[in-house]
């Protein structure tokens, strides 16, 4: 947990009792140790600027500077995923930084051919959402058979097919060792160390220089394991809350407790990202996706899905994209004229706001209708039509300014403009602001635009 300026001061040459002979020596570039401490607290200075600080104080200060939830990286052939390093409980407090990694389970009971197909399907899955390519992050190869050779073959089959980051799932160190032997070029997550196997797993994690998940069904059980493992020199850890923490209620409660302990109490032994396996608690795929959604929101770092179905994965990826969007920065598009489907001088003119989701909803509809059109995007400070209208950022004046400012009148041979149905009330005012233009009220929802353009334009 971050220290205050005064707390830091008490560790510096001028703040310790009795003061160090070099107290307030100014060699760091600041007039006093207290001033230096304030700069350190504000992260505007480096501790290395002080030559006289004790080793003990250095250790305390660097521990305090470490993030409350450790950043964990998994990589494979240049692709990597990072989770952890979160700083808030609620996205409105700042933002969530590292989207929960979504992995798909590959049981080693499948044939090599089935494994390759599943792995490629997951690796190739890509869906466009407001201009972002949403993808799944990796695969979790699980030893179901409990048999080293079989597991090694499954990992090899995955590696031969794709270059995705991996989680290896087995509690048997021998099985794990066999799987790890097939992971050249990969930094996988080893899952999992338990009270029974942690020493052997620690050895494997150190040899492979890979992060290690610890599995236990209580806060105390998890903390006990992470303390043993950090003492044994394994620092990249992930928490796997098991037992009652697998289900809806248990997961919400334990993951909330873990996040609070890490952020609000600065409790080091539990300051690690969390991995969840929603399929273990929700056998039906429908409920599994709901539990996965809950865990993406609160507060998993890795979520291992038990099945792959695009109709399930797409909403989950969109949920993740929504929740991990920085709430202080709505995604915006540049205001201006957007020609769609090569519009000519007689093509319809439509106006909307520059909130990316609004823009994409409208643009996608017109585009997929095959009809040409000119889309005017007003600068509504990145708000949707209704929100911008309510906030006074999308009024008759703003729309008129957009129509005039974009010079659309020179591109078309008509004087008609379609406004969103949600702001139909602006019609009268807009007629005054835009003399000579006919104001047409379009549908309220973008999805109804193609029909409107075909019938009412």
């Amino acid at each position, binding site marked *: 947990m971050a220290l205050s300026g005064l707390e830091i001061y008490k560790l510096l040459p001028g703040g310790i009792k009795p003061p160090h002979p070099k107290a307030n020596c100014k060699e760091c570039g600041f007039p006093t140790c207290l001033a230096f401490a304030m700069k350190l607290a504000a992260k505007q200075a480096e501790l290395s600027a002080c030559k006289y600080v004790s080793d003990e104080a250095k250790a305390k200060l660097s521990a305090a500077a470490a993030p409350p939830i450790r950043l964990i990286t998994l990589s494979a052939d240049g692709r990597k995923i990072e989770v952890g390093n979160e700083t808030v409980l609620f996205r409105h407090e700042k933002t969530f930084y590292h989207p929960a990694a979504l992995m798909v389970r590959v049981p080693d009971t499948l044939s090599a051919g089935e494994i390759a197909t599943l792995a490629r399907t997951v690796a190739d899955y890509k869906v466009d959402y407001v201009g972002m390519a949403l993808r799944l992050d990796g695969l979790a190869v699980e030893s179901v058979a409990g048999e080293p050779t079989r597991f090694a073959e499954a990992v090899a089959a995955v590696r031969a097919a794709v270059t995705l980051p991996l989680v290896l799932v087995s509690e048997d160190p021998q099985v794990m060792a066999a799987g790890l032997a097939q992971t050249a070029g990969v930094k996988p997550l080893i899952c999992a160390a338990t009270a029974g196997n942690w020493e052997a797993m620690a050895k494997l994690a150190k040899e492979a220089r890979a992060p290690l998940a610890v599995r236990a069904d209580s*806060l105390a059980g998890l903390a006990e394991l992470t303390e043993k493992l950090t003492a044994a020199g394994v620092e990249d850890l992930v928490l796997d809350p098991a037992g009652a923490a697998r289900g*809806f*209620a248990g997961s919400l409660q334990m993951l909330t407790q873990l996040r609070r302990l890490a952020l609000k109490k600065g409790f080091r032994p539990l300051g690690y990202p969390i991995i969840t396996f929603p399929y273990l608690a929700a056998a039906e795929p429908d*409920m599994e996706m*709901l539990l996965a*959604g809950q865990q993406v929101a609160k507060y998993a770092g890795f979520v291992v899905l038990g099945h792959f179905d695009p109709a399930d994965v797409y909403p989950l990826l969109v949920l993740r994209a*929504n929740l991990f969007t920085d709430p202080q920065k709505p995604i915006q598009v540049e205001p201006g004229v957007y020609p769609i489907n090569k519009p000519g001088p007689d093509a319809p003119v439509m106006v909307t706001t520059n909130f990316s989701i609004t823009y994409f*909803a409208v643009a996608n509809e017109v585009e997929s209708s095959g009809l040409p059109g000119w889309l005017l995007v007003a600068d509504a400070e990145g708000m949707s039509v209704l929100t911008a209208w309510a906030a006074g950022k999308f009024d008759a004046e703003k729309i008129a300014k957009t129509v005039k400012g974009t010079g659309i009148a020179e591109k078309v041979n008509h004087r008609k403009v379609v406004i969103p149905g949600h702001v139909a009330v602006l019609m009268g005012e807009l007629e005054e602001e835009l003399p000579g233009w006919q104001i047409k009220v379009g549908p309220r929802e973008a999805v109804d635009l193609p029909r409107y353009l075909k019938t009412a334009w």
Partner: protein
Amino acid sequence: MPVIEVPVEKWSGTVRSVTLGATAAEGGTRSHVVVVGGERTLPFLAFEAKPANRPCIAVEVRATNPAEEWAAPLVNAWGAALGDLVAWVKAAEAAGTDVIALQLTTTDNAGQRMNAAKARAAVRTVLNSTGLPVIVLGTGQAELDNEMQVAVAEEGAGERLVLGPCEEKNYRTIVAAAMANGHLVTAKTPMDVNLSKQLTVLIHDMGMPLERIITDPTTGALGYGMEYGYSVMERLRLAALQGDNMTQQPMIVTPGEEAWRAKEARAGEGVPAAWGDWARRAVNWETMTAAALIESGADIVVMRHPEAVARVKKMIAELMAA
């Protein structure tokens, strides 16, 4: 062994308990009442406070057949019931709804404008067909809503209906009608904590008790701005627990309506293969939207698809089981 203190927050505030419906003993004809609100902690954190009332599901029904307007997966799920209000209410009961949400429309089945008499008949039909509490939601067109909701309020006098939406630009008529006939209202504002508080104050200033106001903070569908509503709801609930009196109303949101407006729910053709099977994706869209909103503090979710209702109901049961 490390000693771990479970991090429990000491909240000073409580969400108000609001009762929907009235039984014969209370001057109505409902077979039972539904109480929402009463939370003393964030959703489902049983380690912090005893669970309060379970969030409730309100299935949307209409007197006007929406088959032409609604997407195929939704139309197929209800079948002929869409054209028969009594059958639809019974089917909604069978789907496990806690409350019936009668959504008023601008036109009737013949394409004629709706009016007070038709709205009165619709709410009468619903009240006669079910013993569940009833919510009646207007169209968002102020003049028509005022006309219809005054008639609805009179027709359902004493039933403790929920009438809405009351919006900043149009709340007086509906609030007055609700007060005169013993009903509740929803206070709808566009995704903003302060606007929400302000409307609650305005409605309360007219004399409506706070125990009869439900907040509608407005939501978007998954992928269409849901995260804004999600965060506003989290902030409203945190404010309520921190003791801010005018944010302590239970919350109602309409994930059914929002989700089924999304292209992902409506479009079966001409969409990317990566979107997957239409019907499955569409139901997921509503389910995921509703689930996220419940976990951010919704007390009542107005929903549309029976399968989505079943899943969300199951999720709520699991979350309440702790």
